């Protein structure tokens, strides 16, 4: 569904991605593991059109998207749940959801309202807090909101960047259960995660990213769990 072919991305002089090739299949959860600075977020941003690839191709459903603007990528059906959630802190929960549907709210008001109700069914805590400012929610609630907000654009693939960061272990369990549920409804997910244990528990397939390159790919269980985790945190030295 999503294929990344030999992608190079730099920040000025610093090369962050040195020819990354990977793919995410429809209906699956694909995990991207790797130590800090390996280029995981850079890859997410490159796919989402926030950063430009110097070389390489990104195809989504056969369509080349590497030259599209961030807005066009969202319209193509790719939504990003950013690291640290980045909810709009002084806007209400409901307004956050509306903002998530920005690309279609003018054309399809009724559909957006329906989707908001659907999000409230899936995340009842958001309904309770619909008038509340998003910045006053707990970390787990904010993560739910960020996920629901991304779903509001009706994407076909969800890019999730470090959904567990800064959350208590019990809440992380909840969030991953939600990720499983969303996936069970047919959503394709590309997940970047530091918490390799959690990530491997949901992944259909995973990639190890080190120094801007894919150094291993496989299904959970193909590599010794301890080895994956060690490399995911520390890299190969």
């Amino acid at each position, binding site marked *: 569904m999503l294929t990344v072919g030999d992608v190079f991305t730099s920040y000025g002089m610093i090369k962050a991605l040195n020819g990354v090739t990977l793919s995410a299949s429809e209906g699956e959860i694909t995990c991207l593991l790797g130590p800090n600075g390996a280029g995981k977020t850079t890859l997410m941003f490159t796919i989402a059109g926030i950063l430009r690839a110097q070389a390489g191709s990104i195809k989504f459903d056969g369509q080349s998207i590497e030259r599209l*603007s961030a807005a066009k990528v969202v319209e193509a059906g790719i939504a990003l749940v950013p690291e640290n959630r980045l909810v709009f802190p002084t806007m209400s929960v409901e307004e956050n959801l509306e903002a998530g549907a920005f690309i279609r709210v003018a054309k399809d008001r009724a559909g957006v309202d329906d989707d908001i109700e659907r999000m409230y069914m899936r995340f009842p805590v958001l309904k309770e807090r619909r008038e509340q400012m998003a910045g006053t929610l707990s970390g787990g609630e904010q993560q739910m909101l960020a996920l629901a907000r991304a779903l509001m654009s009706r994407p076909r693939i969800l890019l999730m960047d470090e959904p567990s960061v800064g959350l208590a272990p019990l809440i992380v369990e909840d969030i991953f259960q939600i990720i499983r549920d969303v996936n069970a409804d047919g959503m394709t997910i590309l997940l970047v995660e530091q918490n390799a244990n959690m990530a491997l528990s949901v992944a259909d397939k995973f990639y190890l990213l080190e120094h801007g390159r894919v150094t291993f790919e496989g299904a959970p269980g193909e590599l010794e769990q301890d080895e994956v985790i060690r490399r995911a945190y520390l890299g190969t030295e």
Partner: protein
Amino acid sequence: MAIERELFAKMVDFVQNCIDGIMIGAAYGLLAIGFTIIFGVMRRLNLSFGPSIMLGAFFGTWAFLTLNAAPWMVLAITIAGTVITGIYVERLCFWAIRRDATIASMVSSFAIWMQLDEVAILMLPGRTYPFPEMFVSGGLNFGPFFVRAEHLVTLLVTILMVVGIRLLLYRTTFGLALRAVSESSDAAKYMGINPSRITFLAFILVSLIGGVAGYLLLATDQQVTPYFGLWVTFKGLIAMMLGGMGSIPGAIIGGLVLGIIETQTQWYLGNAFKDMSAYVVLFLALVLRPGGLLGQGIAERQDLAFRRV
């Protein structure tokens, strides 16, 4: 009996000053809204906001002097001139300069300020020019109080504009996008919102607001000088800081408070103290309530801004 009458006369003066202050303060509030909206979407101060209104007004007064334009034409030309200058400022100081280079764009907005002053002086050399009066004049008496017709128009137009701005921000897709960009331009981008486009439109919006406010102030004073730009930037910034950055109701309240304090000072201490009172009040407000009278503190706002990183 005599004492009572004297006391009554003093009360009347005081209330009359408050009325005048509210009228002029309404226009200050509009200016403060202009600063607040741009600060919200850009996290930068646009120091050229005042001078671009001044230049718009110079276009207006130029049309009045050379083409003998009617008042409503002067209004239209002032607004159009402000919008064009505002777009120029946005392209040069904000669009062309990277989003994270806060100081660079503030300094360049200062440089553009000097440039706009020069353009105004080249266009109409000299110091003071007449600015045509509004289509209304005279005034109304309410018992012992008197309200100038220009002031009444200023207040009414301000109320209409504030209602309009609120509807625009809270009832339209553009408003949703503008608020999203103000909260986190990165997250807004992930939702498919284009922050540069929203910023551009925000500049047009505040130039419209500024052009109207500038016209109301100048048509009341009936004269314009190149210093009007400096004056607008000061009044707008002080009103914004008083009310609390990033809050529209705060901007209006800041404007009203500033207007009332200025008129009272002018009446009791004389004209020389009018501008000084504004600075004293700003200083006191910053020391006692750094977050402004209303809305979030600057510190918290900046904290939010930095948390995006």
